[in-house]
């Protein structure tokens, strides 16, 4: 019998919603698993075609310029602000312990090990991943990828392989530059209240920084770069449903790319811990 509220309206069907939850959850899980499977197959296709005699060098160089050089200003500004803010905000805490001389080393280690790689990769996922998703998505829905294929060009090799290689190689370069800019900003941050020469600051930073701080962080950047490229291309290359699909491709390239970066970071910290590098 239909339930009625005192004002005569039908109450919201909470029971029906709750009853449907298992099937909704099932669809969500199967959708997620399908996505993971398809992305893995797409990555497998990349590895099969990644090295080929007819490598598209010109397009690869163009992508390196777009994803590296043109992303540097954004990454640079963010790194500068990050280094400065981190220094200014950490000062009161280290002051409490009378350890202000530790400030440069502390901030530098945080920047090199974690903050610069992750922030740069997240910016990459936002700027590069979304633009790849949107560009390839719009090429897909306007039949440009089909046009490439019928002209006898392998669109996967031309569009996907070059883009994924470029992000894999450019993100680590951007992270190294980001490290340098953030450390320079730390020196400025330290000098807001103290008077520390660059030579002294440099010595304080590099006496505490070890190769084992830098190497694992640098290696994980290649994985971050690969994740940004492969997710952006996958979302764009498999776009459907016209212009709406292009928007979805750009959006999901950012969301999936960022999520993958955090998951990879989590795995990386466990691996470095197991290897005794932490």
């Amino acid at each position, binding site marked *: 019998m239909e339930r009625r509220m005192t004002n005569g309206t039908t109450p919201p069907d909470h029971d029906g919603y709750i009853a449907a939850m298992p099937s909704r959850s099932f669809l969500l899980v199967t959708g997620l698993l399908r996505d993971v499977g398809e992305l893995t197959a797409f990555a497998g296709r990349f590895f099969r075609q990644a090295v080929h005699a007819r490598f598209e060098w010109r397009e690869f160089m163009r992508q390196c310029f777009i994803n590296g050089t043109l992303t540097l200003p954004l990454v640079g500004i963010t790194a500068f602000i990050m280094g400065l803010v981190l220094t200014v905000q950490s000062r009161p805490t280290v002051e409490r312990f009378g350890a202000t001389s530790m400030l440069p080393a502390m901030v530098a280690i945080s920047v090199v090990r974690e903050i610069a790689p992750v922030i740069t990769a997240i910016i990459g996922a936002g700027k590069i991943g979304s633009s790849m998703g949107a560009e390839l998505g719009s090429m897909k829905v*306007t039949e440009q990828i089909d046009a490439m294929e019928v002209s006898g060009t392998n669109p996967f090799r031309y569009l996907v392989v070059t883009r994924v290689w470029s992000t894999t190689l450019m993100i680590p370069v951007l992270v190294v530059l980001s490290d340098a800019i953030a450390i320079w900003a730390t020196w400025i941050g330290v000098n807001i209240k103290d008077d520390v020469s660059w030579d002294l600051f440099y010595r304080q930073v590099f006496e505490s920084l070890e190769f084992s701080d830098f190497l694992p962080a640098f290696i994980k950047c290649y994985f971050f770069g690969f994740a940004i490229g492969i997710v952006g291309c996958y979302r764009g290359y498999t776009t459907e449903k016209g212009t709406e699909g292009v928007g979805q491709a750009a959006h999901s390239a950012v969301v999936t790319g960022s999520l993958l970066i955090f998951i990879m970071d989590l795995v990386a910290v466990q691996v470095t811990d197991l290897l005794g590098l932490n």
Partner: protein
Amino acid sequence: MEARSPALDGPVVQVRGLRKAFGSNLVLNGFDLDLRRGENLMVLGKSGSGKSVLIKCIVRLLQPDAGSIAVLGQDVLALDQEALDRLRVRIGFLFQSSALYDSMTVQENLEFPLRRHWIARDPKEKETLVEEVLSAVGLPQTRKLYPSELSGGMKRRIGLARTLILKPEIVLYDEPTTGLDPVTGKEIVELILKLQTAYNTSSIIISHDLNVAKLAANRIIVLHEGRNHVEGGYDDLRASTDPVVRSFFIFM
């Protein structure tokens, strides 16, 4: 304008029993087609009748569920990727949306297929080919423009130029006049006929535009419910009493 008479020869495209379904939607259900050398064959059908699917199957952009496709004597469905790419160079495809690469200028669009196939390695030779096709489509002044700066008719012409730069033997036209005003549409059809003579191509034109049928087609196949419904010249169809054929002439 009179449609050109075909030079009768063996079929350059032969399709037999083509079937293609998307889920439960059966789009092509045993379609047959023969394109003779030098002929303009038109496939007439309503929107959504499977015309685009047909020509996408011919160049294997789509994989049919059943049937056979032979192009220039080669079994398209049995070719490996490299052989298919070599065959595709001999088949031009004009997309409905023109499908110009919008991050490239007109010149780069035209040079793109040349660079890929190592045709015209010498820059001067490349330049000559670009100039030749741009003059052929009547747009020699557009080489530095981007597709977004072109009108719909100009895009269609540049699309045609990009198709012809590889000197294909067969050209597949996907709705060449859709979205254009009647005057520009007529100009495109006239251009197609002029270029067909100049480049000696055989064509499959898919459209629902009867003006294209009247001006360009040597032979017309009506595609209905995934099969060959009727076949004949424009005048045969015009005189037909078949209700499906009559429905195309409703505004004529």
